[in-house]
């Protein structure tokens, strides 16, 4: 095939995707594939894919903060930690049913979002990034030093939850749990993106002063982004705790925050399909190239540099007007 024929296939494909109905077809097919994959996948593949859905949720959550509202957050793992520890502590030390700990995890992560966001969202981007970085470390160090969080060794023996009598213990169970959560996260992100609040985030991201002059409470809408992003992290953390049955402070390091941020930026900030692609790239790449041993992280880094140099707006293409 000649190169020109090749490009026309690509443009045709993109044009075809512009139609709402065609998009729905693609989405349905992809959802169906995601649903049946566990029937053919082995345990290892299942574990990797579960992890990919898990990162999809985290990346979509951070995308609300970074992609929609344009706030650079370098401590997102903190919200994920708050959710995980809330569930971990409540189930293992107070014997509370896992499902009841989810609202608690949501509340605690929201609260954490308000505590960190309230006083700091008046800051402009660079300063905010530093403050969030500090906050992420504070949460990790608190978890490391408190007795209730199990100190440096963390919490172990978190009970597996049961769902209508079935104990969620196998890989396949958690695959579906995280798949459903990821789909729900996509739905919520999509609805928010195309709402009054979603537009307000975009106005503030483009020009704070003009947005304020149009009657938008700049600090208020940023706080919304922060709190909603925190909730995504909190819920993901909750399920993470019961999947792993053990959590330790070293899961929630600065590197974890950077990794999640990387997924968002790599895929394309503010674009839901892009963020999913980013999350998958993040998880799948090191696995696919496992044969290369420790060289693979180096190659991963080089690939990322190349993508960022040639596609600074992320892997996913920009919307055409």
């Amino acid at each position, binding site marked *: 095939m000649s190169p020109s024929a090749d490009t026309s296939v690509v443009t045709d494909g993109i044009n075809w995707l512009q139609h709402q109905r065609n998009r729905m077809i693609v989405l349905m097919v992809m959802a169906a594939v995601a649903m049946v994959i566990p029937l053919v996948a082995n345990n290892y593949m299942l574990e990797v894919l579960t992890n990919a859905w898990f990162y999809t949720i985290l990346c979509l959550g951070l995308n609300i903060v970074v992609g929609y509202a344009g706030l650079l957050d370098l401590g997102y793992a903190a919200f994920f930690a708050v959710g995980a520890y809330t569930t971990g502590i409540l189930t293992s030390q107070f014997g509370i049913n896992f499902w009841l700990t989810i609202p608690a995890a949501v509340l605690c992560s929201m609260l954490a979002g308000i505590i960190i966001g309230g006083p700091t969202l008046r800051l402009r981007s660079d300063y905010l990034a530093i403050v969030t970085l500090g906050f992420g470390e504070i949460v990790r160090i608190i978890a490391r030093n408190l007795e209730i969080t199990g100190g440096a060794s963390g919490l172990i023996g978190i009970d597996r939850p049961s769902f209508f009598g079935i104990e969620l213990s196998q890989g396949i169970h958690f695959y579906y749990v995280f798949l459903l959560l990821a789909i729900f996260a996509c*739905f919520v992100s999509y609805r928010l993106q195309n709402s*009054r609040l979603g537009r*307000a985030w975009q*106005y503030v991201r483009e020009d704070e002063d*003009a947005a304020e*002059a*149009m*009657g938008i409470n700049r600090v208020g809408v940023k706080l919304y982004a922060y709190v909603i992003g925190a909730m995504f992290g909190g819920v993901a953390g909750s399920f993470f705790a019961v999947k792993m049955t053990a959590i330790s402070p070293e899961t929630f390091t600065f590197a974890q925050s950077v990794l999640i941020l990387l997924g968002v930026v790599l895929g394309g900030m503010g674009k839901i399909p892009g963020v999913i692609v980013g999350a998958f790239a993040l998880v799948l790449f090191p696995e696919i190239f496992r044969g290369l041993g420790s060289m693979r992280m180096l190659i991963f880094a080089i690939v990322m540099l190349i993508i960022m140099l040639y596609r600074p707006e992320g892997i996913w293409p920009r919307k055409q007007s």
Partner: protein
Amino acid sequence: MALLEVQNLVLSFAGLEVIRELGFSVEQGTIASLIGPNGAGKTSVFNCLTGFYRPDSGRIHFNDHSILRLKPHKITQAGMARTFQNLRLFKSMTVLENVMSGMHCRTSTGVLGSIFHTPSQQREEELIRRVSEECLAFVGLLDKKDRHAGNLPYGDQRRVEWARALATKPKLLLLDEPAAGLNHDEKQELIELILHIRKELGITILLIEHDMGLVMKVSEKITVIDYGKKIAEGTAVEVQSNPKVIEAYLGSEDEEDLL
């Protein structure tokens, strides 16, 4: 009772007084202007009125309420909208989306409404769209509503800013140098548009302008400031013949404009 009343306004930056004891008022239903040579403090006055700057002292009453310590978004909500001297559009968004921003402070759907598409949310989205399209039709840009704002010619971008300000449903519209960068024909259209806004929508207008010709044609009351102080006030004819005004402008860059 005047719609806008400013008394003894003082603003200083690091000890330098930019506005000194300034007082003026804008009556309901009028078109008023604030003029003065470069650096006289006109835009600073606007920024005080709209809450972007915090004056050191003074009184600003709008619609019988003090707005002196309010945040900019609260002031917009109270019914005062502004345009910017150098365009401040949301450039990567469409023209319609830009204008929809104005309706933000007149609507209230929250997070849950947005996620679940409640009936009230759908009604509100419909309303936002309808009002925004009306505002675009008013400034004559409805056919370009799906274009990206940043890709429009300069004159059209100005109109988007106007439509956006109108979408906040203001009682008072503040225009910061609306004629800057426009050619002769566009200025004529601008004059018509300003008169049209007052006549059709009943909105009171306060403008800052360099272009004396335009100010003289549209405004009923002109306040002249220099070095942050009021030096004259009155109708176009009164102000033009005032020796203080001539002195303030004489030798400045805007000399030709006066003639």
